């Protein structure tokens, strides 16, 4: 139930690193005892800053094998994929690749396309935002973890270990017809960063020293403000009805979340960003930014700036750049079986697959592919018919035993929830989860 639990990122730790456990437990004890008085809360935060730093030092000090670092990237578009160009006709490792998957031929053995997976929703744009969560935002209040998306779910687990728990990006403006990919546990849609120049700056450009000092001072001021208002909130709590108390609980939880986030960020403030052999890129149209974004995410993973990233291909895709008439990505997705429009749609889809293939190759060449699970897909099945059934789903990397094309049961009653795949991905990431979204169990066949 929302509100009264300690932030779960302190509870679970990556896989087989038992020497982390003591320091994490210490964090919990400190936090539990510090729950009342203001001064010891301040102490808790200072301790938290120190504790977050400790595992990092311990890694080097111990000299032992570090825990296998796991990564996750999701790439998604809002309008689905034309079925016969995405799903192979046959199953199995040797299945022939249809037109839009041909760019992935050199990576055969490192990816799997899944047929007949979806979240069980009917039709339309109303459900495409559930791609990474499986839960409609309108049903979120009834679910224990709301409609949290897989990227946010995984990011909580590794918060503090890298500068950015998660990097949410989009190749262009997400205003009219966005993917609405990333959702927090509270049902807030996380807006993606839409300019490659900003992504670059966040990852690789250090602030000047005096600005860092000012940011640090601002953090301290914010924490003081939160202290002051926290007291008022507790007093208010005393006189509220039960239902209102549940509401204010959200506020109190929010305060704790912000304090923890500030604590983690302060720890990173003083550390310089990694130096990379690249210049700040120019912003541009979606077709221009998409390849750059793939490169930046690859760099972010290589430099361990983040372990979780999402890339949205938004509805503002500049279709004219594909050498076809500018009718808008949404316009082409509503091809209504018109051959000319379908051809245009295929070109837009192909472009995405070409650059996905390039990205995967890059990861493979830098040795990251086996530890990075890459998910490509959409919350829309067939954009023209507007269905949310049998979504396009492709998983690459992660060290899984890939099968090129896996066809899951089609009949009603035997269908497998897409969330089952996500549960498997989460477990592979190192989280001992019982369930994710509406999963009924992990996906048996993979890994």
């Amino acid at each position, binding site marked *: 139930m929302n509100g009264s639990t300690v932030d779960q990122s302190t509870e679970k730790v990556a896989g087989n690193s038992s020497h982390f456990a003591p320091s994490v437990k210490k964090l919990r004890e400190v936090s539990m005892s510090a729950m009342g008085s203001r001064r010891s809360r301040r102490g808790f935060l200072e301790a938290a800053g120190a504790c977050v730093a400790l595992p990092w030092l311990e890694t080097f000090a111990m000299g032992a094998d570090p825990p296998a670092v796991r990564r996750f990237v999701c790439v998604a578009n809002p309008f689905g994929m034309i079925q016969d160009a995405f799903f192979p006709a046959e199953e199995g490792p040797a299945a022939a690749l249809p037109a839009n998957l041909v760019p992935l031929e050199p990576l055969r053995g490192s990816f799997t396309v899944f047929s007949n997976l979806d979240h069980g929703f009917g039709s339309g744009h109303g459900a495409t935002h559930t791609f990474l969560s499986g839960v409609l935002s309108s049903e979120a209040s009834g679910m224990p973890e709301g409609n949290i998306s897989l990227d946010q779910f995984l990011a909580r687990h590794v918060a503090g270990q890298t500068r950015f728990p998660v990097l949410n990006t989009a190749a262009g403006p997400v205003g009219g017809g966005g993917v609405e990919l990333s959702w927090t546990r509270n049902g*807030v849609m996380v807006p993606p960063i839409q300019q490659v120049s900003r992504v670059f700056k966040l990852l690789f450009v250090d602030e000047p020293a005096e600005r860092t000092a000012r940011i640090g001072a601002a953090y301290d001021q914010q924490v003081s403000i939160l202290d002051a208002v926290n007291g008022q909130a507790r007093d208010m709590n005393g006189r509220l009805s039960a239902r209102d108390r549940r509401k204010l609980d959200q506020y109190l939880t929010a305060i704790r979340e*912000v304090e923890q986030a500030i604590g983690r960020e302060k720890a990173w403030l003083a550390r310089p960003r990694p130096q990379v052999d690249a210049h700040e890129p120019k912003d541009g149209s979606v077709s221009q930014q998409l390849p750059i974004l793939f490169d930046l995410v690859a760099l972010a993973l290589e430099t361990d700036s983040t372990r979780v990233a999402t890339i949205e291909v938004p509805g503002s895709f500049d279709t004219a750049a594909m050498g076809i008439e500018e009718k808008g990505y949404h316009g082409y997705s509503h091809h209504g079986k018109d051959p000319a429009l379908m051809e245009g749609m295929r070109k837009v889809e192909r472009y995405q697959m070409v650059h996905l293939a390039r990205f995967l190759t890059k990861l493979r060449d830098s040795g990251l592919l086996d530890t990075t699970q890459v998910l490509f897909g959409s919350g829309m099945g067939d954009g023209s018919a507007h269905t949310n059934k049998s979504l396009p789903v492709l998983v690459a990397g992660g060290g899984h035993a890939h099968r090129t094309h896996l066809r899951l049961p089609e009949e009603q009653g035997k269908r497998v929830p897409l969330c089952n795949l996500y549960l498997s991905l989460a477990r592979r990431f190192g989280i001992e989860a019982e369930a994710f979204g509406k999963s*009924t169990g992990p996906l048996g066949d993979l890994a």
Partner: protein
Amino acid sequence: MTSARTTIVAAVLCAVAARGDARADGHASAGRPAALDTTVKSLVTSRCLACHDDAGREAGVSIEALGATVTADTAAGWLRVLEQIERGTMPPPDEPQPTAAERHAATIALEEALVTHARSRPADREAVLRRLNRTEYRRTIEDLLQLDLAADDPTRDFPDDTRTHGFATNGEALVTSGFLLRQHLRAADDIVGRAIHFEPRPEQRTHALRPPFEKMSLGINYGEREHYAKKLRQPQPYQSLFYRGGFMPLGALQQGVPEAGWYAIRIRAEAKFRDGDIDHKKMFGGTSLTDPSQPLRLELHTGTLVGIDPANKDAITEALFSARSGDRHLATWDVPDDVPTWLECRVWLEAGQLPRLTFPNGPTGSNYRLDTYVKENKYTLLDKLQLAACEEADYGGDWFHLIFFETPRIRIHEVEVTGPVNESWPPPSHRAIFGTERYDPAAAGDVLRSFAARAWRRPVTAAEVEPIEQLVRAATAAAEKNGQPPREAAEAAIAEGVKAVLCAPAFLYREERGERLDGHEIASRLSYFLWSSLPDEQLLARAAADDLATPQARREEAARLLADRRSDTFVDEFLDGWLKMRKLGTMAPVFPVYFDDQLEPAMRRETRLFFKRLLHVNGPISDLLDSDYTFVNRALAKHYGLDWGAARERLGAAVAGLEADDLQPDGAGAAGSTGFVQVKLTDRRRGGLLGQASVLTLTANGVDTSPVIRGAWVLENILGAPPSPPPPNVPVVEPDIRGTTTIRDRLQKHRDNPACLSCHRQIDPPGFALESFDAIGRWRGHYVTNGKALAVDPSGEFNGRPFKYVSDFKASLLAQHQQFARCLVEKLLIHALGRELTVADRPAIRGIVTRAAADGYRLGDIVLLCCESDLLARK
């Protein structure tokens, strides 16, 4: 999966389900059963049980199974029965009907039973502690601190508020997350920085700018500069705007103004060659991208280099010359022809913002049109001297030769920027916190207490403010220890205290302590309903005197609040929530005219003007269903096929209920040609909300229309009777735009299959009537695709009344007048109360509708009646 794990998973799923139920139920108590009156029982027996008994179960519904009392188990079923009887949808039109008196009596009796039962359960419907939504936060800050946040909205990055029934006021749904709280911290920091000014009055400066105003651009402007500098060797008398798109930044102010404030901007400009030697048809294939009958327009926008890396030349150029999100339109002028005239405005600029100019209705340079034009016409339109100059000059590219042609352009001769203009110092925002006396650090507590009292909209105790006072003392001490002089330390510290006041739960949430609201809580209800902002002095004074408990007092204040300009926010927020106006533009239409003629802002404004006027003249709500008038500008008149020639005579004429700046969206400038006019509609295809392009566009998907979507919208928002969702395994209707069948044909199954018919009998007909309008609201008699034309068939039957076109469909809507009134009242109450409506609210709603009926259901009256209602004074 092991059996142990299966059990765990099953347990988790059960727990999830149970939790869901518990939430829905709220309390375990089932309440006392309420017996049904004989009027209800006799109506049900004679009119319903023939089809809806246990044996028949028509459409899966058995009323026999509900028994003869309202209990916790049967309440939901009986409510559905009540709705069907009340709306007249049952018995179906082809069956014998009860008399109106019988129907009414049964409705009242059944409602009474449901309400009695509902009231016997512990109240589950209280409004939950409500966070200020984005609009309310912004408006509250603006009114509290006398700040204009439009130039740079600090809430721009706030996540969208969750909407319930379209409205962002539902307490349960408005969530506070860590993410949002961080945004509030940042916003408070930004806002306090803008509001507090301990520094001395900034010097007012006048920048007198001469052409060329920018020296960075390439292309035609580069050619113009070089022509004067290198060829003619004379000071450049003006700098021209040759085409639409792109901006001319005022280069001398490139880094933006150093201080935020009011700036007086004067521009001496003239329009040239409006009738210029462009063959419009030839250049633009007959579209109206330029129109010699229209004045040339000049627009002023903001731009900024804040956040741009000074070493990145490309980024700088892009930021100065291109459109960027976050930039604001400040003013529009119709530029006089051939006579350089001073155009003036007074605008607020934030620090770091610079003014830049653009020519929104100039010729377009896209697709190399201007280059081609120059190439093709060089030898016919230029004289020998000009041609020679072209050949000689080496400015790169042919297109700069455009300077010699006589295409429509605006010449800017001089610009003056004066500011910041501060009539008083410190500014109003500072005085809103500190009063008129100089800040005395010893009085920090008093300052915080009085500011908190206004910010938190209620009296405040010293104890409540104590933690914030402590914060200020600690911050002062820390700063002094760091070597800051005491005065500065105190000033920085009090700013922190003000931020804390703005992040406190008492600011961010509207608390309602008891079942009956006290004066301040009622005052907030009224002001947030009608202004989306905090109560003003007068309202607070009446609250303090506990004067708002009577309906009469609430009505008086509500009338005063409506008459105030701040109620414009109510018009916007209510239309957003009720008609879903926010959806307009989310599915970008594929029709170029939508963007070329800027139809979206125009259609939005039409609906806004229509509703606002109706509200302020207290007109009848039937106008919303069908009217003989609407509001159009030039582009919209053309879109609707109306005669603009006659209408434009009335440009600038006053319209009762509307202000001049409502009708003329030119910001701080003066552009009569952009104005809207109230027009009389002679044919009844348009008229009312269903004829307005905004509604027709937001109920389509930008490409094609769906009768089901539009029909469902009408049922939900006009009749307050949202249809049930489709059954789970309905296959999707595959759109087929190859043109062989119409959508009506493809929906044939709705009519053939009785299971579908039960709902689609209601949903489809309004949609069919509206098929006469395409996805952006243009009239169409045929679907034309791939050279094939199929006739649109907009006929149907609705509630037993057949109709042939949208005009007679609207007549059958007017017959449902009362149901529409009820729907409107419900929407208003959902917006105002911030919670779901329940059965127990029905008597109050009925009361409002009955009283409104007495006067013909007038819009202003209905809003006031909602404010008078007891519902507004209870949780």
